[in-house]
């Protein structure tokens, strides 16, 4: 952070965005937030003028995103992750140590204006729990015995991806701790798929034949999505890379972005060619500072090599999110790029005809796109050598919690949950519960270790693949606390648009607090069901519809946890 005398003026800060309209709102807010520590009325008014946005809307957007603040903050902001895995691995001790060291409570700023201490719903660093973010540098695991070290992270300290697995297709790199350079990527066959200059129809045909489906959670067939967007008559068209991975337990996309950014870029460039899009947006989770720096460098390399830019006929722009889980929902993400609060839109219409800026858009998860270069280069049959008919290919599984080596593991679809845990070094302690598919997924017990991880097997078992996250909790962990953390996450992250989620996430959290504290009222268990099913059945978007999965599944499996007077579960 620069000293006061060298601080850029508002005019200087906003010069790069002047006259570019509302879509530049988040970039402008990031610039002001970083330089001034908050976005006050004067700055908001200047931004409103520069981008021709109502000042009320500027304020509304500032209020929506956790990384923006309308109130002054300290020079540096320390965010202590309170996701379920970090919480189970000492987040409270870290927060207490920092609080004692700085002499401030959570939510407060030190008297010298240097440090603001906050708890944060999730930082996406579950494999390195407990995690802390200092401005945009991560420290994980954070050591509560050395709070002063937590405050001054160096690039060397930053947590790097931990990667393993039984196959190496998406993870066919040598060192996950270093981003694979353009040269190394090309030496391994990278960008060859793009350089083949295949006709758009052929690219779509190969992706369709591969059976690739979306890796963000909804599992929609990728080739079909591309075909719809290719057939949509309106112009221009867009490709959007959904790199807003924000669900507790999910950190696979960060590993890909940090270790192999060119694979993601090439996949997006192939998508752009397939649908004749001239613009690609990469919407990256705001908390992913290291991934941002790596991605920027990779984009420079790709531009220098002629894969991106005017001569390539396609532009790529990286946009940073600003702390909102809901922006991983595809239509909320569009709203965010358009400079608005991240409210999900009604569907239909769907993104393939009415996406970003109302235009035909392909939006894909990072891992989905990273699989595309292999599919186009080697052919669909090569890809189908792994997995099952309905769930072909290799898959990344982020495994965290009580296993010997938390990390991202690549395995073919069909691997059982138990085999996957063995890839991660096996459980640490005795498995009590696994939260499968992310915080929006379902709890299972140790009896589910035999379940093959495929779409079809999970569906048959009443489960879902979701983001493929696997969070393991051993018998030492307090499952009630885990459930409270998950419920708190959704209450914090609900966008507030539709009533079932806006009200239900809050009531779900309050009911759980009451039930677990032994203060349940007679009707509370029935209410918990009503609230959960109402969110599941009636919420506007997929995030609200899954915000009760963990609680409802735990209640089915372990009813004793919810009964009064059974404190010893």
């Amino acid at each position, binding site marked *: 952070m620069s000293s006061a005398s060298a601080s850029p003026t508002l005019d200087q800060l906003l010069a790069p965005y002047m006259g570019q309209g509302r879509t530049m709102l988040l970039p402008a807010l990031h610039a002001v937030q970083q330089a001034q520590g908050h976005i006050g009325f004067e700055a908001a008014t200047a931004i409103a003028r520069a981008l021709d946005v109502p000042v009320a809307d500027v*304020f509304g957007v500032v209020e929506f995103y956790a990384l923006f603040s309308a109130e002054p903050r300290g020079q540096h902001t320390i965010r202590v992750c309170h996701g379920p895995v970090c919480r189970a691995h000492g987040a409270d001790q870290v927060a207490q140590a920092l609080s004692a060291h700085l002499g401030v409570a959570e939510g407060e700023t030190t008297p010298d204006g240097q440090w603001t201490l906050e708890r944060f719903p999730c930082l996406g660093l579950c494999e390195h729990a407990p995690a802390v973010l200092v401005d945009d540098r991560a420290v994980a695991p954070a050591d509560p015995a050395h709070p002063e070290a937590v405050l001054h992270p160096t690039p060397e300290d930053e947590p790097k991806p931990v990667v393993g697995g039984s196959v190496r297709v998406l993870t066919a790199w040598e060192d996950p701790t270093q981003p694979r350079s353009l040269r190394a990527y090309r030496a391994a066959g990278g960008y060859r798929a793009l350089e083949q200059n295949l006709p758009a129809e052929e690219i779509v045909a190969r992706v369709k034949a591969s059976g690739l489906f979306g890796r963000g959670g909804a599992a929609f067939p990728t080739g079909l999505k591309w075909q719809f967007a290719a057939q949509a008559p309106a112009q221009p068209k867009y490709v959007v890379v959904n790199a807003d991975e924000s669900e507790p337990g999910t950190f696979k996309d960060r590993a890909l972005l940090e270790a192999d950014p060119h694979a993601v870029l090439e996949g997006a460039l192939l998508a752009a060619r397939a649908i004749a899009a001239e613009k690609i947006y990469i919407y990256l989770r705001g908390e992913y500072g290291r991934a941002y720096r790596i991605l920027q460098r990779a984009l420079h390399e790709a531009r220098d090599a002629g894969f991106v830019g005017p001569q390539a006929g396609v532009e790529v722009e990286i946009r940073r999110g600003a702390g909102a889980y809901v922006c991983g929902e595809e239509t909320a993400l569009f709203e965010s790029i358009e400079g608005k609060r991240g409210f999900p839109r009604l569907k239909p219409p769907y993104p393939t005809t009415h996406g970003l800026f109302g235009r035909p858009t392909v939006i894909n998860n990072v891992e989905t796109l990273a699989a595309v270069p292999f599919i186009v280069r080697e052919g669909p049959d090569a890809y189908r050598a792994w997995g099952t008919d309905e769930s072909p290919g290799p898959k990344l599984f982020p495994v965290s919690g009580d296993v010997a080596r938390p990390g991202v593991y690549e395995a073919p679809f069909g691997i059982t949950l138990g085999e996957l845990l063995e890839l991660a070094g096996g459980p640490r302690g005795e498995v009590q519960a696994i939260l499968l598919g992310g915080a929006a997924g379902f709890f299972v017990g140790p009896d589910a270790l035999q379940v093959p991880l495929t779409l079809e097997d999970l569906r048959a078992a009443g489960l879902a693949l979701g983001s493929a996250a696997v969070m393991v909790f051993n018998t030492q962990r307090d499952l009630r606390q885990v459930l409270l953390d998950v419920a708190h996450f959704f209450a914090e992250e609900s966008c507030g648009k539709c*009533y079932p989620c806006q009200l239900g*996430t809050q009531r779900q959290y309050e009911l759980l607090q009451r039930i677990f504290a032994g203060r349940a009222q007679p009707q509370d268990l029935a209410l918990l069901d009503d609230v959960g099913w109402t969110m599941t059945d009636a919420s506007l978007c997929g995030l609200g519809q899954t915000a009760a999965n963990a609680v409802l599944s735990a209640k089915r499996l372990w009813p004793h946890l919810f009964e009064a007077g059974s404190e010893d579960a």
Partner: protein
Amino acid sequence: MADTVRLTIDGQEVTVPAGSTLLQAAQAAGREVPTLCYHEALTPPGLCRLCVVEVDGARTLQAACVTEARDGAVVHTRSPRVERARRTTLAMLASATNLDEAPQLQAYLQDYAADPAAFGPVARREYPLIDDNPMYVRDYSQCVLCWRCVQACATDAQYVFALTFAGRGFHTRISTAYGVSMPESPCVFCGQCVAVCPTGALKPRRTFLLEQGYTPEQLAHYAAVDHDAVHPPATHYAGQV
């Protein structure tokens, strides 16, 4: 494309113009479907979810106000799933917000046997009344976050953009930029927001003062002399931010 579609609503066949919503189709079939955020003059945001209905083959319930009626659809407007969703949503809403001056919502609460008291002591959205201009008062403790005022102030009617949302999730509230008073905001006092408010959250100041016990004569007298003179003693002045 055919000009009409035929579908079944609660066992009854209806034929409606193609492009109709399920809400319109249900009304054509004589079925009552509760609505709250829906207003015929505004873009339906589809967010209150009170109008949800069950459509055979659909995974989740569908908001009738924004779902197109499809040929051959089989729709249930009061199935057990629908009843549960409406009852729970209404009870949660009433447990968070003062609905005393929303008679339509009170009727819905009765109709669906929704019991907000069942939630016991939980967080409510309570805010001080804002009386910062001569035209209308704002009591956001009665606000149901239906978006109508924000929409009317913006591109659905006035293009004034005085209103937005502060906070997020349960703690979302309607606000001016940085909570400035209405006279400091771009508000032109057109009254559109007051006209579309479905609860007592936005109210003409005169109505409010009459409710407080002032007589029309008193108000006329004060208005002729100095409108600022009428400051009901019960009113909080919430200078925000």
